[in-house]
């Protein structure tokens, strides 16, 4: 390096640079994204150190400032969020003009701030924090703690002079439901750089007191104001608290990480106070109503048992009387049937007797009638008939004899002039003796003539 040296004074160089910068950049501005590595405020002016990092290594640095009047204007436009945006670690999108000062060197003068990058970054960080908490097993730790049924002793973490803090205490102690609380206060700053550390310390300290619950309150504030409760450190100490933590951080939209890891959160400090006394009231009501229903049901149980007894007793009497009555009827029936049976038996025997007697009588009369009609009459008729036959027979015999007599009677012959002659009473015709000289008797109708046979001639 053997060259002729052209030597200037530093001021000459700086003046040249200042002129060059002013000539080239004075009318230009640039939107720059960078991370705030340091932020300071002095006399209303804000001084920032901006940087860029890549893979954990810093690759660019530059100082920047924002003058009082510009800050106020922009801060008004951003609803006062600007101080919280100008915080160490925040990423910012700023409109800058490059300036060079011969003493202070190269600087960026901030003309405007676009908060969206910062907000997005906040959300990103919040998500990161949540992820980290989850990864480390902290996120749900508080949920494993059970809130006591009665919460009476409260560790209160908050900023004493804020309205949220006062609202909480007033609501807690002046409600009509339950006020028998004791509060141990832990005063902390809830904004600014010290807030995180103070809140963490307060949580840690509260662990050593006999409280039922830790309540963290913060009145309403801007997104950037409340960002402190997105801090990993606070979330970690809440998660790790052995005492249940309830948060009451006033916000309208997004939850902060502290809410998410706490055992319970309400959207305002007042709501936390209300939760606490309502819980006591509810508990008391539950006790009362449980006890009331126990008593009521016990009495009902007894009453229904008594009713059942009354019924059972009635049935007992009823059924018993039924059995007795039924048996009485049964006996009555038996007696009745007995009566009927005896009467019927005797009646049937009597009619059997009557029948027998009338059969005896009828049969006897039949026998008599039979005898009268057949035996006697028949025999008498027989006698009659046989007698008549006898007589008839005799009459016929007699008539025959009479007729024979008539035939044999010689008197009729004699009347006709014939005579009968006999010799020794023998008809002359039959006489075989000596006729001659015999005495002949001759009978005529008129006479009996006796004569002597004198002559006998043979008749030819």
């Amino acid at each position, binding site marked *: 390096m053997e060259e002729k040296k052209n030597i200037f004074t530093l001021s000459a160089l700086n003046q040249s640079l200042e002129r060059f910068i002013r000539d080239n950049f004075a009318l230009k501005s640039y939107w720059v994204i960078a991370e705030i590595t340091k932020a300071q405020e002095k006399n209303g002016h804000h001084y920032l150190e901006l940087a860029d990092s890549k893979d954990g290594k810093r690759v660019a640095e530059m100082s920047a400032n924002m003058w009082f009047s510009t800050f106020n204007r922009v801060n008004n436009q951003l609803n006062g969020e600007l101080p919280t945006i100008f915080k160490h670690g925040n990423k910012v999108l700023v409109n800058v003009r490059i300036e060079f000062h011969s003493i202070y060197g190269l600087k960026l003068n901030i003309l405007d701030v676009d908060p969206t990058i910062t907000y997005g970054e906040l959300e990103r960080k919040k998500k990161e924090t949540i992820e980290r908490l989850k990864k480390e097993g902290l996120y749900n730790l508080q949920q494993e703690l059970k809130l006591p049924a009665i919460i009476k002793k409260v560790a209160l973490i908050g900023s004493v002079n804020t309205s949220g803090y006062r609202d909480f205490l007033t609501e807690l102690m002046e409600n009509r439901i339950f006020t028998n609380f004791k509060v141990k206060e832990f005063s902390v700053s809830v904004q600014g750089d010290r807030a995180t550390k103070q809140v963490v310390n307060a949580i840690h300290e509260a662990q050593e007191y006999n409280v039922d619950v830790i309540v963290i309150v913060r009145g309403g504030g801007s997104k950037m104001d409340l960002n402190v409760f997105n801090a990993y450190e606070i979330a970690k100490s809440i998660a790790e608290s052995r005492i249940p933590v309830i948060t009451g951080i006033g916000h309208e939209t997004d939850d902060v990480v502290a809410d998410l890891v706490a055992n319970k959160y309400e959207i305002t400090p007042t709501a936390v106070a209300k939760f606490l006394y309502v819980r006591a009231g509810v508990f008391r009501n539950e006790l009362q109503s449980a006890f009331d229903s126990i008593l009521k049901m016990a009495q009902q149980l007894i009453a229904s048992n008594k009713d059942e007894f009354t019924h059972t007793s009635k049935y007992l009497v009823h059924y018993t009387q039924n059995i007795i009555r039924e048996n009485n009827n049964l006996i009555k029936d038996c007696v009745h049937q007995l009566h009927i049976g005896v009467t019927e038996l005797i009646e049937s025997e009597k009619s059997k007797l009557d029948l027998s007697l009338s059969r005896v009588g009828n049969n006897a009369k039949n026998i008599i009638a039979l005898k009268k009609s057949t035996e006697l*009459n028949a025999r*008498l008729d027989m*006698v*009659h008939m046989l*007698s*008549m036959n006898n*007589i008839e027979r*005799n*009459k016929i*015999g*007699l008539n025959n*004899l*009479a007729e*024979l*007599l008539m035939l*044999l*009677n*010689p*008197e009729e012959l004699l009347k006709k002039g014939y005579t*009968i002659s*006999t010799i020794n*009473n023998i*008809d002359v015709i*039959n006489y075989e003796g000596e006729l001659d000289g015999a005495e002949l*008797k001759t*009978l005529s109708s008129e006479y*009996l003539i006796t004569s002597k046979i004198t002559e006998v001639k043979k008749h030819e």
Partner: protein
Amino acid sequence: MTAKLDPKLKYDEALEQLQEIVHLLERKEINIDDLAGKVKQAKLLVEFCREKLDSTEEEINKIINPNDGEEKPF
């Protein structure tokens, strides 16, 4: 000879006498002297027997039908 018959004469005896007379007549063993008497007696006997039969019949009818002629059959 042919006096009236003995009223005590029995029907059988009368009938026998009658038959005797008839036999005598049949055999002509009759005495002419007695003939008329015998015939007469025979006639008497016939009448006797007839009467006897008639009276017996009547008597029996009376016995059997004591109220004959009346309506009652017995």
